[in-house]
């Protein structure tokens, strides 16, 4: 019934609206002047004056036409209306944003995967068999360091390693896996004395454990992932000599064992060779260098981030979004080439610069207002 009532009145009012209005006056002095029109359109009038002009506009089609034209150019968004709406508290907004369908759509499956992965890790760690640690030595290319004092802990570093950055890299390469090593359950230790580890790769993939079988063959810098977990932990750019491989079985927990220092540190020449081999193998396999990967990544970042006219933009979903954009605020939508757009850029040429520089849709915050330019 209410809807019918509304429709009836709507029809009657539409009929009434077709009637031609009689102009209030033909005398220019009776109309609003330019200042009154523009301040009304900009919503910059005190309440009393606004009410007075509203009454005039309700009767005067000429002034109304002008105000409509000016309002659309100004693009004033209901500032008063927004101010009157009581905003929910910050924590409510935060909660509301966390439980939006868009967030839940991805968060719930992701959370499920994390829980499953966590359970899997715990179960695997409990049942993990004895850890095999391989140590590979190459007597031809290295002078063996006298296996003197036992290593009291994984953190021990020889003075040589401390002095030389290469040595430090080597040490990192050898220590990190120790830190990351699973519980010491009598895993055989096979350690390469001829392990040629590049600094970058050692830092990036610091697992020196080697399987004897695979250690017999020199491998490219970026080894393809193997099927077995042990193989997958191999350092990617380790060159192993065929000369000598010695495997030691560690039958006691590592913390209880005194490791003999069979670790070999590359001298400068070995390191240079390692770099060369690495470069060659990189070239051969076409695998990008770590540094070049980083450079590509930074290029991708810069391609998605631009600074124009003092504003910083990030490209998200094909839209250039001002970093100062607040989605809770109202925005004015403009189309390039429209009257409203031309009026805006006439007043704010910097927005034109931004719109010219950035293709596609742009959200720009300018003087406290948000504009969505298409």
């Amino acid at each position: 019934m209410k809807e019918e009532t509304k429709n009836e009145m709507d029809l009657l009012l539409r009929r009434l609206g077709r009637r031609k209005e009689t102009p209030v006056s033909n005398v220019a002095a009776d109309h609003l002047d330019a200042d009154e029109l523009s301040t009304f359109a900009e919503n910059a009038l005190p309440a009393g004056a606004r009410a007075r002009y509203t009454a005039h506009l309700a009767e005067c089609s000429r002034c109304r036409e002008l105000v409509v034209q000016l309002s659309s150019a100004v693009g004033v968004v209901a500032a008063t209306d927004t101010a009157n709406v009581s905003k929910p508290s910050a924590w409510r907004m935060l909660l509301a944003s966390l439980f939006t369908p868009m967030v839940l759509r991805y968060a719930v499956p992701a959370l499920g995967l994390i829980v499953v992965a966590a359970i899997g890790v715990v179960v695997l760690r409990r049942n993990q068999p004895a850890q095999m640690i391989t140590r590979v030595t190459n007597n031809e290319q290295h002078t063996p360091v006298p296996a003197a004092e036992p290593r009291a802990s994984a953190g021990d570093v020889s003075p040589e390693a401390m002095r030389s950055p290469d040595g430090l890299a080597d040490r990192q390469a050898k220590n990190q896996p120790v830190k990351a090593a699973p519980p010491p359950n009598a895993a055989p230790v096979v350690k390469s004395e001829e392990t040629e580890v590049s600094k970058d790769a050692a830092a990036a993939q610091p697992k020196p454990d080697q399987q004897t079988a695979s250690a017999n063959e020199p491998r490219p810098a970026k080894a393809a992932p193997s099927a077995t977990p042990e193989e997958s932990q191999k350092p990617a750019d380790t060159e192993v000599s065929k000369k000598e491989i010695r495997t030691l079985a560690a039958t006691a927990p590592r913390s209880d064992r005194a490791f003999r220092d069979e670790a070999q540190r590359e001298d400068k020449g070995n390191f240079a060779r390692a770099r060369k081999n690495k470069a060659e193998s990189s070239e051969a396999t076409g695998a990008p260098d770590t540094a070049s990967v980083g450079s590509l990544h930074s290029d991708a970042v810069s391609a998605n981030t631009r600074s124009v006219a003092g504003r910083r933009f990030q490209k998200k979903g094909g839209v250039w979004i001002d970093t100062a954009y607040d989605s809770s605020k109202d925005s004015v939508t403009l189309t390039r080439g429209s009257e409203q757009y031309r009026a805006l850029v006439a007043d704010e040429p910097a927005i034109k610069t931004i719109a010219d520089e950035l293709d596609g849709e742009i959200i720009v915050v300018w003087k406290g207002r948000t504009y969505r330019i298409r």
Partner: protein
Amino acid sequence: MNTGIENLLNEGAGRLLARAADNRSLSRDVLLPRITAAVEKYLLKDNANTPHAEISKFIDEMQADDLCLIIACERGDENAWSDLVERFTATVRSAARSASSNEDAAEDLAQSIWAELYGLRARKDGMPASKLAYYSGRGSLAGWLRAVVAQLAVDVFRKQSRLVQTEEDSDLERLARVVEGQPLVAGIPTPEESMSNRFAQAGVQQALHQAVQELPAEDRLLVKLYYFDNLRLREAGVVLGVHEATASRRLTRIQTDLRKRVTKILVDERGWTPAETERSFVEVAQHLDTDLESLLSKEAADLRG
């Protein structure tokens, strides 16, 4: 104007000069008459006892830089003129383009505006009669310039647009002759329905017209913008300074209010019974629907023929 308000205005002028990024070396005395005029026009005219705090707030919200620029231009400051032309040429051109039918007309209009602003005519005191004197500083200068352009364009082109509209209006006039007792459109009504419907329509339409006139100004303006000017709710909301959703809610309330008012007018002033009133609403609305459909089908047939 009492001394208290004069002091208030004087202090306000000082603050305005202080916060302008470039006050064009103007003094308080130069600024004071302009600020006084704006306060009188927009505040004291509606309430002579406007609280002092409100007056101070009003002055502090004025466009300091724009006002200083315009006053400096009025005083013949060449640098100020250069700045004005440089900063607002694009604004004037854009406004002229949107108000004109072609580029040439837009260019002519823009030139006329600059001539008006510069003041080619002379006042009695020998100073140029420039439109700049009418800028109060309350709104933005860009907005004021657009309004000046729009006003001039309307004055120049209104006659022309009226001629163009006359033909279109004649169609609408046929729809609007109900009140005068003319048949509506298209299909020829049967004698029974023509008598009762015409009577009902005339009564309801007259009462509705009266009810709209009795609405508060803000509501009346919304009705005019939406039903008379055919604006969308979003556009009407922008004019009223409210969100589209608020305009929509307000319009729904107005429709309910109008129905009550129309019913009251018909019952109290025309002697209709409430039942007759209700029946008339339904009949008139149904008849309007039919009229519109027949009008559209007839026009479609005309186009095909």
